[in-house]
């Protein structure tokens, strides 16, 4: 257990062990753990087929040997090892959340849980007045008014640079600076690539962005259809809008959703909108205080619920 140091009493320990055993037995019935390998394990391959050795494998005396701890995946002739806990592996078109660490000439450098920092060019970013024009030297001098160090930005991966670092773009209205919320870091393998990464939870008035790099943003809902970048505007009415404090009810909802994500990532369950909303609803139904969501009792209950859910899925499949 990585983050939470919980003191479980005897019954909770027994219940937790029973639920975890049930999870493990369900998984083995789907043969997921059969393909696990560790470093320097030989991967069984049929040597007659011309097997393509993918990521996480290497050749040792004609045998295919794993270089990572993970699960062996086979796709037609490709054999590769999918590592579980590792840094983010980017793909073009991924939606990520990054933190600005440097304002450099004509670009911002973002930290995104990758082996190198990503670059967001000034030309890949919408100007505050929204006009599409050539970036001038004045724009370059005003970069600091758009994003500054330690701002959180939502962007999309545009491609790779020649040295392997990422090139980002934030041209659409839904990308850009993230305000009035919390950022959570979870292991990237828990965030699956889906069609939608931006979620608007209506009943809580909260935006949830599941970045593929493991940075998850939970914040007050921002209406992107009527969003106008008021960053350089001097009208007092717009300034009032952006300076409005977040109401306490929304703050509580943000904290509850954030705690649900923390709990799911500590247990090791895949993060999705469904699992997060289910955990939040369950905590509201059971009248769990927001801070108690990270406590021992709710932790054990969540694991038990997940074990039951998977068992019912397996039964349905049969």
């Amino acid at each position, binding site marked *: 257990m990585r983050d939470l140091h919980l003191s479980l009493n005897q019954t909770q320990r027994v219940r937790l062990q029973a639920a975890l055993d049930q999870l493990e037995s369900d998984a083995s019935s789907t043969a997921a753990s059969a393909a696990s390998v560790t470093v*320097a394990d030989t991967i069984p391959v049929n040597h007659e087929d011309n097997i393509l050795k993918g990521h996480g494998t290497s050749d040792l005396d004609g045998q295919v040997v794993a*270089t990572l701890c993970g699960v062996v995946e086979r796709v037609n002739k490709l054999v590769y090892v999918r590592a579980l806990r*590792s*840094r983010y592996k980017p793909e073009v078109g991924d939606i990520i959340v990054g933190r600005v660490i440097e304002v450099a000439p004509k670009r911002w450098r973002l930290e995104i849980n990758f082996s*190198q920092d990503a670059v967001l060019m000034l030309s890949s970013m919408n100007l505050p007045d929204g006009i599409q024009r050539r970036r001038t030297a004045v724009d370059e001098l005003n970069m600091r008014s758009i994003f500054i160090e330690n701002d959180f930005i939502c962007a999309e991966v545009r491609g790779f640079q020649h*040295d392997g670092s990422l090139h980002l773009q934030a041209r659409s209205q839904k990308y850009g600076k993230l305000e009035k919320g919390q950022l959570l870091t979870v292991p990237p393998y828990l965030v699956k690539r889906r069609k939608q990464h931006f979620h608007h939870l209506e009943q809580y008035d909260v935006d949830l962005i599941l970045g593929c790099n493991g940075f998850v943003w939970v914040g007050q809902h921002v209406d992107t259809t009527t969003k106008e970048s008021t960053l350089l505007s001097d009208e007092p009415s717009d300034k009032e809008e952006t300076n409005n404090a977040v109401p306490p009810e929304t703050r509580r909802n943000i904290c509850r959703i954030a705690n649900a994500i923390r709990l799911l990532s500590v247990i090791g369950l*895949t993060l999705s909108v469904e699992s997060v909303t289910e955990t939040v609803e369950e905590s509201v139904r059971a009248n769990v205080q927001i801070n108690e969501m990270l406590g021992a009792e709710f932790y054990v209950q969540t694991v038990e619920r997940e074990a039951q859910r998977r068992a019912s899925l397996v039964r349905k499949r049969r």
Partner: protein
Amino acid sequence: MEYVNPLTGLRIDGRRPTEMRHLKAQIGVVSKADGSALFEMGNTRVIAAVYGPREVQNKGQQMNNTEALVRCEYSMANFSTGDRARKPKGDRRSTEISLVIRQTMEACILTKLMPRSQIDIFVQVLQADGGTRSACINAATLALADAGIPMRDIVTSCSAGYLCTMPLLDLNYAEDSAGGPDVTVGILAKMDKVTLLQMDAKLPLDTFETVMQLAIEGCKAIAQYIREIMLQNTKQLECRRGS
């Protein structure tokens, strides 16, 4: 002082000459690190944390931009030895052991796969009872595997000595400070290659070969244990994650 009892053939802690201390390992102890592990060999307890691959912090240190830069830092906690240590970092022994661990791990990490990045390995000794170097290397291997950093093979390390005309495996502090020779061996377990070989004091060549062979046997046993721990951890993570 008799380190091996002539009547029973047992050492001062009750082990047989070719018996290793009890091993225990735990993965994922430092939550902020990309990979971490706690490794115990008897009373020696060591914690390793790995950060990386991440952006190179000091551009001046980046020699080669086709490979990852591996940095290692060894330190002993103040409370790890019998007498509370004065300055646990920066003294000659720590610098030497940091260098040794760095070279050992660099030999097994596939640095060419992660150019322009940096991998930091921090090892700290929580309890020192002989064999800290070996425990650090074993802990670092586990931490690197936890962080998902590609490696050629599992590196394990073990020490052996020669006291009372008998080769002894896995010396503890009392046996180590007896003044006899202490051979530390680090091997790539599957490829059967030696990456670390250190000895203090003198030994005749044939005795040295026996002692080194004993240490290699110890390394292989540790590799077996480490492999089981890694496999168990991988299976656990995978089945919790679900489909």
